């Protein structure tokens, strides 16, 4: 049976001709960027928000290799925080960590990927992966 691709949540991410992007929002008064999107600014309570896409290169802020099972994942798997130039840190899984050692500060890219599979569903979400040397050019 073919599993139905289902996003983890609506309104988190998109994939268009420009590639993968996270759906964030910026407060037009104080400039704070929020991911996931907020209808109201959490810093100043105003509702004057604009949509922002987080995409392109981000940097690895910190990471860990998890060696115990959690609800949806078998160990070992990598998770961490990345920092986008917009000043937002985002938490997520790290893809491709087995292939090259992770290092704080390394360039990372956003990818859309399968998080886990259920009986009839394939749960899709975002992950981050180290940018290879070739990609940086």
């Amino acid at each position, binding site marked *: 049976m073919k599993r139905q691709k289902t996003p*983890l*949540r609506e309104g988190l991410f998109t994939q268009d001709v420009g590639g993968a992007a996270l759906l964030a929002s910026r407060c037009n008064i104080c400039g*704070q960027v*929020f991911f*996931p999107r907020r209808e109201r600014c*959490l*810093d100043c309570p105003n509702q004057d928000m604009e949509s922002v896409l987080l995409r392109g290169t981000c940097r690895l*802020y*910190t*990471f*860990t*290799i*998890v*060696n*115990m099972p*959690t*609800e*949806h*994942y078998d160990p070992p*798997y990598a*998770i*961490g*925080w990345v920092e986008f130039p917009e000043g*937002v*840190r985002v*938490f*997520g*899984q790290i893809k491709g960590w087995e292939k090259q050692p992770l290092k*704080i500060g390394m360039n990372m890219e956003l990818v859309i990927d399968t*998080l886990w599979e259920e009986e009839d569903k394939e749960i899709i*979400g975002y992950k981050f992966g180290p940018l290879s040397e070739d990609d940086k050019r």
Partner: protein
Amino acid sequence: MRDVAIIGVGSTVFGKLPERLVRDMGSEAVWAAINDANVSPKEIEFAYCSTTFGGAVCGERILTEVGISGIEVVNVENACAGGATAFRGVWNAIASGLYDIGLVVGVESMTTSPIARKLIPPEAGDLAGDMGNNMPAHFALSMRRHMEIYGTTLEQFAKVSVKNHHNGCLNPYSQYKKELSIEEILNSRMICDPITLLQCCPNTDGAAAAILCPISIARKYTPKPIIVAASILKMGDYASRWEDMASSDLSSRCAREAYEMAGCGPEDIDVCECHDAFAYSELSHYEELGFCGYGEGGQLIDVGATEITGRIPVNPSGGLLSRGHPVSATGVEQVAEIVWHLRDEAGKRQVAGARVGLAHTMGGEVAGLEAGACAIHILKR
């Protein structure tokens, strides 16, 4: 607000005790506190009970075992900060003049809880939880930042666990009475890199209790009342405002406010019980509580300053790592431990001449927040 004193404390021995009911452990701790305070159960006017997994009306179930009925009882959940939250509730109601004599009891049976032998899971629908986050991972992520920014070494973190397991050997209430070496700790099973098993607090069952009253009547009950000089409880700020994940901004903020309320500074603290859920946590709390500068936690443990005989002894009880961590009982147990030290009754683990003590707990994880809650109490003799 009135000055409030602790007139009695009590505790069960901590451990893996699946055969013990929550109400048995709770009532044992309450009886111990009642006897310690030399107060009649009939004099208790109200009670707070903290439990996370102990079920509904837990406080009422415990009090029926000790001849207390018909009074106001509040049951509190605030994750690992629950015990401190309940303690603060009793302090608050007495300080404000609502009641004179109050009881706090914290109790947990982790081994019979739905999460026995498992991690505390993130709430369903928690975005970070769905992405694979868990409690040790959260702290491993901060630990790696601390190593990156300050150059703190794995050995320095391991020394926290060595120290606390040593202290646990001296504490009759402690879950573990086993010395550990740096090598054993670093070579134990990897949990979330770089956190290994013996850098993590265990699953623990146990209960602790305390009785409080206004300082004006405290000497009727005890020659050694202990004054509550500061009580601070705050939720965490948005993670977007988190300065650096190497440290807890919430702990730093609560510490500043607690010192201001108590009219003292970190240099005045003689003994500290802090929330060492992981070895990393204690080392970063040294810095947040002001016992050393940011990035100097590694040096502080290297020179032995936080040992029982050091400049600022931390977790003489063995802490969460060795005394154990019955989630909602921990905050009350920390208070009891500080009281024993300030009364010069802590036996082999006694911090000589302790006059001022600080208890610090943190609790809960919420996606989008730095941390759930933090509570700090400063006690003086």
